[in-house]
């Protein structure tokens, strides 16, 4: 009955995947206006697989732990699977969060979705770009 579970405290104290990725394939940053937390996710994606992920978070203990756990959960996963990550999965993997801290796991979910969206729109641009190039070489 401590404020946070052992899992949360472990991920808070020893957050996995902290940092940033140079030339990331997708970057997502989201914030919660009310509590002020901000999360930034960096993805490295090869062949639609998340090969690397890093995060930077400004926020409370559960925000940091949620970021850490969420990045662990998606590492090595195909994009299609990553898109199905829910805040519930993050919370469960952390052995639960206090009710008023659930929004932190939502933030993690949203940050990852944002990063995937970024990756997809970048891909489209690249696709359009290569299409253009192909046209040109015709």
């Amino acid at each position: 009955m401590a404020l946070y579970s052992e899992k949360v405290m472990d991920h808070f104290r020893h957050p996995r995947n902290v940092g940033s990725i140079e030339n990331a394939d997708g970057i997502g940053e989201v914030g919660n206006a009310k509590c002020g937390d901000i999360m930034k996710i960096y993805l490295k994606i090869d062949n639609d697989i998340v090969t690397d992920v890093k995060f930077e978070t400004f926020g409370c203990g559960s925000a940091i732990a949620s970021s850490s756990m969420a990045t662990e959960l998606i590492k090595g996963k195909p994009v299609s699977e990553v898109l199905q990550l829910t805040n519930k999965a993050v919370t469960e993997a952390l052995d639960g969060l206090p009710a008023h801290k659930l929004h932190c796991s939502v933030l993690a979910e949203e940050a990852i979705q944002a990063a995937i969206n970024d990756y997809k729109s970048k891909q489209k641009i690249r696709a359009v770009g290569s299409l253009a190039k192909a046209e040109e070489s015709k």
Partner: protein
Amino acid sequence: MGVLVMKGRDNLRNHMVYADNAATTKMSPAAIKAMLPYMETIWGNPSSLYGAGQRAAEALQSARERIAACFGASAGEIYFTSGGSEADNQAIISAAKIGERKGKKHIISSAFEHHAVLHTLKKLEKAGFEIELLDVHENGLIHPSQVADAIREDTCLVTIMYANNEIGSIQPIVEIGAICKEKGVLFHTDAVQAAGHLPIHVVEQNIDMLSLSAHKFHGPKGIGVLYARKGIPLTNIIEGGAQERGKRGGTENVPAILGMATALEEACAHMEENTKMVLKLRNRLIEGLSKIPHSVLNGDLEKRLPGNVNFCFEGIEGESLLLLLDDKGICASSGSACTSGSLDPSHVLLAIGRPHEVAHGSLRLSLCEENTEEEVEYILQSVPDIVEYLRGISPLWKDKVKGKRAFLLPE
């Protein structure tokens, strides 16, 4: 980049550094000792006629006199309550009822009062009272002229706290009291953070009503005092028996009252020497923490509770800071959103004009005479490391360093 700098508690590894005395204090052994006889042998109900009850009644009366003497009141002006919150509630409700009878329904307070005051005022607002919350200056002070300007014909109460619980700023109580007295308006002060720490004299300071809570000066929890100047009719918020001259029902908490009396006397008797010791530690802390870039001290440097240190660190979120301090054995607090179930940043820090983002990153260290220089040095080693670490993993901070976002606090 985020490099975990947590090294454990060093030489104080197994020692708890308690720096949250504004939240609650460790009980004084003398206060515990004062309670025990009333738990073990003199357990009688003071309303009972027989000797065993009358001995409790006598103890109660002597505690009333001893407490009254600590701030220039008389025993008949002391009402025992279950703590500071109840005293605040009753003082304000009572003044409102008195005002209502005279058609006066305007109440003046400040934006950074404790929630026991603010929520009671909100309740009165719903009941048709007009509540005017004075702005607080950036240094955490209210100017007496603000009170003078705000008082109207229909003002029934001014309630301004003696010292703020978060940022420690001490208000100009004598001056505010004098203005209220001159204008014939009741003046209540929430002295929960001041009692036992600052000299108080209700007559000289023109205080009509005052609240205090024993656990803030090494007394027991669950007991407090409402002082109400003779002649001010109180309204019950707890109805029941004839206890407290009919103004507060419920069997008297004799052991806690005796513990409170002892703790208050002790605190008042040693106030000068305690203040001296605590001030020295506090000033060292303030000096040391000021060196952290992009930080700011909250609350006035001079008009400040002896034990209070409160900083905002830009780019830091309070809860993370507290949890990492806890890992090092340091007990501290924050006005932070996340500590209490509410997500809003501290209303006190917003009241003194800190932007939301900065208000989220506050740290309150509140000292008492039992803290040591060694502890202060340990805190001064720990805080900068943690601040640096947390800034290192913050996307916000990175943007600021890169110039993509503006710094809100100067280096």
